[in-house]
């Protein structure tokens, strides 16, 4: 089967739309409508254009339930664009959508939400702790995070388009297989450095105060780890800070 051709401006449209892939995210079709929305510029190249039966059938097929990490959904978008434009039978495309959804969700969650995002935050917190100005702290986070974010989306789209329905082995690439563990180790180190540095700058107090705060935080964190899953950190912080504020105001 010949490789279909798609002009650069169509890829730009697809890539831009991928930034809004979760625009209509909901508990029923999840990312489904977003996939159809992203594929639409490419599907216009089907015989008959936007008024043709092939386009309408493809749009209907691609806008049904789909689940994936929003960045790695680019792999699915690239692969599905190629499959649809190559005239792959509908049953094969539907089987592929079902098979690909799970891995794209779990791999992306581990690599991005539980890896690259906290790592980027912690590196920016190190910069803050070292005395960086607001613009520098914010830029450190945004540049670092989005270098990974945008590269991952672009890689996903490229690899999906290149391999089509045979894209699954690409998900075994070292980046996705071993990447989360490497990022987790780097983030652990950044966390270790960021916590005392950030605390010192926020407190701006004597070393004894800092030592007391860090010791208290260490004890409390052990307690939080023990009750993990039963207490959410931000809710605990909300309740305790509200109590503290109340005492401060009424005493």
């Amino acid at each position, binding site marked *: 089967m010949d490789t279909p051709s798609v002009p650069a401006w169509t890829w730009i449209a697809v890539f831009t739309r991928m930034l*809004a892939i979760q*625009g*209509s*995210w*909901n*508990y*029923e*079709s999840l990312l489904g*409508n977003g996939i*159809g*929305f992203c594929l*639409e510029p490419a599907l216009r190249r089907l015989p008959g254009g936007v008024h043709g039966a092939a386009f*309408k059938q*493809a*749009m*209907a097929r691609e806008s049904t339930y789909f689940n994936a990490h929003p960045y790695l959904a680019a792999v699915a978008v690239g692969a599905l664009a190629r499959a649809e434009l190559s005239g792959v039978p509908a049953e094969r495309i539907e089987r592929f959508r079902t098979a690909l959804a799970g891995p794209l969700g779990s791999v992306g969650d581990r690599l991005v*939400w539980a890896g690259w995002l906290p790592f980027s*935050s912690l590196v*920016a*917190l190190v910069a*803050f*702790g*070292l*005395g960086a100005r607001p613009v520098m702290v*914010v830029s450190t*986070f*945004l540049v670092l*995070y989005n270098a990974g*974010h945008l590269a991952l989306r672009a890689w996903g789209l490229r690899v999906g388009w290149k391999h089509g329905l045979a894209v699954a082995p690409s998900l075994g690439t070292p980046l996705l297989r071993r990447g*989360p*563990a490497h990022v*987790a*180790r780097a983030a*652990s180190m*950044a*966390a*270790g*450095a*960021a*916590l*005392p*540095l950030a605390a010192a700058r*926020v407190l701006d*107090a004597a070393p004894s*105060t800092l030592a*007391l*705060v860090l010791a*208290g*935080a260490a004890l*409390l*964190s052990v307690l939080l*780890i023990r009750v*993990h899953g039963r207490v959410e*950190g*931000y809710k605990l912080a909300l309740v305790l*800070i*509200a109590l503290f*504020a109340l005492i*401060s*105001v009424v005493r």
Partner: protein
Amino acid sequence: MRELLPLSLLGGVIGLDVVCFPQMMYSRPLVAATVAGAFVGDATRGMLVGVVLELIAIATLPFGASRYPEWGSAAVVGGAIAATLPMERAGTVTLGVLTALATAWVGGLTLVRLRHWNAWLARRRRSALDAGARGTVIGLQLAGLTSDFVRAALLTAFAYALLFPLATRASAAWTFSGPVSRSVVMCLATAVAASAAWTIFHSARGSRWYFAGGVLVGLLLLFAR
């Protein structure tokens, strides 16, 4: 309260980034609170609130259908409140963090409502979707994006309008000193971040040693300064 309308628009734009568009994470509290602080004239105080919130936010991972707090609009509210309160008062950062946490919790509930709303819109257009109507697919996407922007802007407006007067009164009656206030908040935030780091990263081999190494580096840098 002249800042209410522009802050609401800022909250709308930043809240939209959390899930819908473009997910570049300028909705992270570190960024959003700093920007909101700069917006009302004090980026540094906004950043202090953002740092504390960021430490707490590390513990909440935005996995797909899970329920999580909405940090974007919340950080705008908290950063702006802290930066607007009189600088000489002791509890400004604490109150900024508190108002942001409350807004983040409510914001998480509004995200759930938005997802139900999007599902309802899609259900109503089921037959058009099944027929592959291009306009319906695009329309649903735009409706979702617009709804999210409106949600985040309204959340910011209501939260700021309600919490700013409360924070102003609390700030005037605040009795704890600045160092005590910051110590309590920082102790809690550091504890949440440390436990989150353990929970998220401990499955990676050797991560505890990397963490210990990081602490050592951090302390050495502190002593070196």
